């Protein structure tokens, strides 16, 4: 009784040569393919980094002006703006990990009503039309009130009132009254 081994039966030398040729051609083909693909991918990836830089950034309650400076250092983009037009002191909290710059700017745009226009490597920033802070007096409010003792209901003079989220505060006067002026309406107070 003939038993066949599990591995393929021995082939004649002629077959072997054909196989070798096929394998070699296959390898050459893959190499060529890899070379072609490689040459397409490399410049493309490079182009992408110049067109769309990615940013990782974690800031808390940082003025917009400082955030822009950090973005400038992290990318090759520079920002141009008119100082009096933008809310440069607006506090920004951001936590992004390797996100495209476009997305980071969109977040800033939503928070501060900005438009970004890119010219060359320069990003110009404008306040979005109709949302100019000077034309929107209703965009700024004040917070005022009286601080009283929870037990005796007596007014508390010279007490400190502080809104942690926007890092602003005031002291009560001798009648327990306090006032915190010009709080941006864009920031809700939780």
């Amino acid at each position, binding site marked *: 009784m003939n038993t066949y081994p599990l591995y393929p039966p021995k082939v004649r030398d002629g077959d072997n040569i054909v196989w070798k040729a096929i394998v070699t051609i296959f390898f050459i083909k893959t190499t060529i393919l890899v070379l072609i693909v490689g040459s397409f991918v490399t410049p493309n990836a490079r182009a992408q980094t110049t067109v769309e830089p990615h940013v990782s950034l974690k800031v808390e309650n940082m003025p917009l002006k400082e955030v822009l400076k950090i973005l400038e250092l992290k990318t090759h983009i*520079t920002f*141009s*703006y*008119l*100082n009096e037009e933008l809310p440069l002191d607006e506090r920004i909290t951001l936590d992004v990990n390797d996100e495209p710059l476009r997305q980071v700017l969109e977040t800033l745009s939503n928070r501060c009503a900005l438009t970004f226009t890119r*010219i*060359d490597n*320069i990003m110009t920033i404008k306040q979005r039309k109709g949302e100019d802070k000077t034309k929107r007096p209703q965009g700024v409010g004040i917070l005022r009130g009286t601080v009283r003792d929870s037990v005796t209901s007596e007014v508390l003079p010279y007490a400190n009132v502080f809104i942690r989220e926007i890092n602003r505060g005031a002291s009560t006067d001798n009648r327990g009254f306090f006032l915190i002026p010009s709080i941006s309406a864009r920031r809700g107070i939780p």
Partner: protein
Amino acid sequence: VDKTVVLEPEEQVVFNNESGISSFGRFDSLEAVGWKDNIYKFENEPLRKVLPQLERAYGTKLVITDPSVLGQKITTTFRNNSEQTVIGVIKNLTGLEYSVVTGKNNKQEVRFVQRAR
């Protein structure tokens, strides 16, 4: 005047024989000497002051007549940027239109004017 001042990097001093030391302090090296590398950095400076420096850098006269626009403070950095880019940034930020005209001495100048309504 007998006073010794030691300057660290990024510090500058202004000295005058009559009035002595008139200013001393830190400065932004890019703002001060960036021009030698074709870098023009301005931080919160009125256009009135910025335009003449850009004119000198690019050799083209940049004209804005509206005093309220000239008083606007700008923050920007130009690094080896073309004249077209500089003009584009000014146009975008001020909202003015511009036209290139031939001024005195047959020299070209860029005039920024209010957009026609």
